[in-house]
């Protein structure tokens, strides 16, 4: 079980319960995630996307412009999030850090997904022997829980933003693989795949028309759920000094740089951390909603 599987499982169960409760009196929308939360999540994401695409519009101040004599200014009108140890505007840095941070999270997620797809489809498609082998491999990989695989990876290939990204991706891959394999087996054994066989469709055609689309379509949703966690893990690695490094305006790196000053200048760490939390929360809420939509549609 991975964070991902827990997330995916959460997004799933609600829908199934709602669907099962078709009977009279089943308050239809009673337990949907509240609309307010979703709207807030959408707003946050809009802001994040804007920050990632056009940071100079959202925060015109140069995030790298140092001003040594204005260091450690607490939040004020001029610097809503304060300034850091080199007098850089933290708001601007956080906004400009959105792109790299999201990119890092997305890249890690894509790596995880890619690994997951390869392992998962191999297990699901290439017969029992491969399935058995991949399953054992996954069990072994799952024995490196959480950050352990990422840390082990970093030991071998050295720290840094690229290895940290790959490490987070690699450590999420087994989770994706297991979900994809499960999905693939469900689809392969589904009545509609059988129906296509009965209609005389060939293996290849069934694979391309039915199995792959239905297996891979949920990946987008899964990825959305995963990005938030990937960002959190990557930031943790950065915070531990094993990921992105200053002066990059990446959230994890900002946290790592700011942690020294935590007792005197909390705003150095608080705001980048807040953005990580917001991102992870918003993507989770959005991912759940997407998953519910997908499943409610069938």
């Amino acid at each position, binding site marked *: 079980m991975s964070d991902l599987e827990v997330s995916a499982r959460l997004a799933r169960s609600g829908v199934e319960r709602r669907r099962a409760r078709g009977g009279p009196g089943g308050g239809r929308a*009673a*337990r949907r995630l509240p609309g307010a939360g979703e709207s807030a999540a959408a707003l946050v994401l809009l802001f994040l996307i804007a920050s990632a695409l056009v940071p100079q519009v959202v925060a015109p101040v140069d995030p790298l412009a140092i001003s040594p004599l204005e260091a450690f200014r607490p939040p004020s009108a001029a610097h809503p999030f304060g300034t850091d140890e080199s007098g850089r505007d933290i708001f601007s840095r956080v906004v400009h850090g959105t792109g790299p941070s999201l990119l890092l999270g997305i890249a890690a997620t894509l790596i995880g997904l890619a690994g997951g797809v390869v392992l998962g489809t191999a297990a699901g498609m290439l017969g029992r022997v491969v399935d058995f082998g991949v399953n054992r491999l996954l069990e072994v990989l799952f024995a490196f829980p959480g950050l352990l695989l990422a840390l082990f990876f970093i030991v071998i290939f050295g720290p840094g933003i690229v290895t940290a990204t790959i490490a987070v991706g690699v450590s999420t891959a087994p989770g994706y693989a297991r979900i994809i394999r499960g999905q693939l087996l469900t689809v392969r054994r589904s009545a509609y795949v*059988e129906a296509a066989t009965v209609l005389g469709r060939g293996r290849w055609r069934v694979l391309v028309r039915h199995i792959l689309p239905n297996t891979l379509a949920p990946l987008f949703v899964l990825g959305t759920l995963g990005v938030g966690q990937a960002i959190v893990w990557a930031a943790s690695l950065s915070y531990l000094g094993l990921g992105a490094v200053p002066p990059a305006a990446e959230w994890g790196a900002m946290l790592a740089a700011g942690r020294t000053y935590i007792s005197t200048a909390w705003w150095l760490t608080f705001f980048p951390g807040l953005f990580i939390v917001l991102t992870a929360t918003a993507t989770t809420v959005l991912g759940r909603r997407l998953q519910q939509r997908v499943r409610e549609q069938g």
Partner: protein
Amino acid sequence: MSGVGAPDRGSAAAAAPGPAPAGGRGRGPGDAGRIGAAARWWASRVAGAAFVLWAVATLTFFAIRLIPGDPAEAILGGPGSQASDEALAAVRAEYGLDQPIAVQYVRQLGRLAVGDLGTSYSLREDVAALLGAQLPGTLLLAVLALAVAWLLALALATWSTRGGRVSAAVGSGLEVIAAALPHFWIAIVLILVFSTGLGWFPPISTPGVAGLVLPVVTLAIPLAGFLGQVMRESLLDALEAPFTVSARARGESEAGVRQVHVLRHAALPAVSLSGWAFGFLVSGAVVVETIFARPGLGRTLLNAVTLRDIPLVLGVVLVVAAAYIVVTLLTDAAQRLLDPRTRAA
């Protein structure tokens, strides 16, 4: 997860036939049969766990050979160790690095089998002894955090499924946010508020109980977020399940329904997630032990990673993997015990 090759799928009203023979004729699964099944289950699971452990040892053995450069030098701390030729030769002899790889592998397995994890170059100490000293602290932290997370999750899930839509929205919102909180951030905020601000708890993990509070809470909050969501879903499922209707129809009160029936069902997925939670907690321990300056496996691992102390990293990885395997096994056993439905599968 699911078994392979279910024959009668997609069929008519025939649900899963269930483990017991249909009709009143046949003898139910006798106690002897059940014990046999349990023994078989344990045998297969223990064998599986042993396999995974062996595979982990094998994987790590070959993985560290991916480290560029001389493995002997890596064992001594990498190129910066400036290790002397004598030291390198000693390490080569100790690890048999001059032998063919197959011999090295067998020797490594042999050493692991007797619990010899090598010597940490950075701490100049026997890794097994070192980790033996560090493990209890981390386990204590993990167990306490798990317990607190359980309580928090249960309280939140129970509260948020009791009342109206507002508490449901607040409850689920809190859980989602809690699950998204990075450990280091929680730790920072907790220290700011409860140590620097209010001065209630020490900012570093001192030996006493007070020193445990912040680390445990830090670890517990995100976990409670995850567990709370899972518990809440199963709580809601159970609250709507026909058996709670039956119970109510018997005259059971709402509190009774929750106590006798629902909580058990809500707890089940939390039990089954404990293996995952263990991994999550160990990951968190790396961060938390570092921030709160608490000795333990996590901090040892981070130091070992930063210093590239290969024997120590390998030791922690193997110990954590072994612990994880054991925890997973115990979790599955607990689940099997608690939920007879899982015995059929």
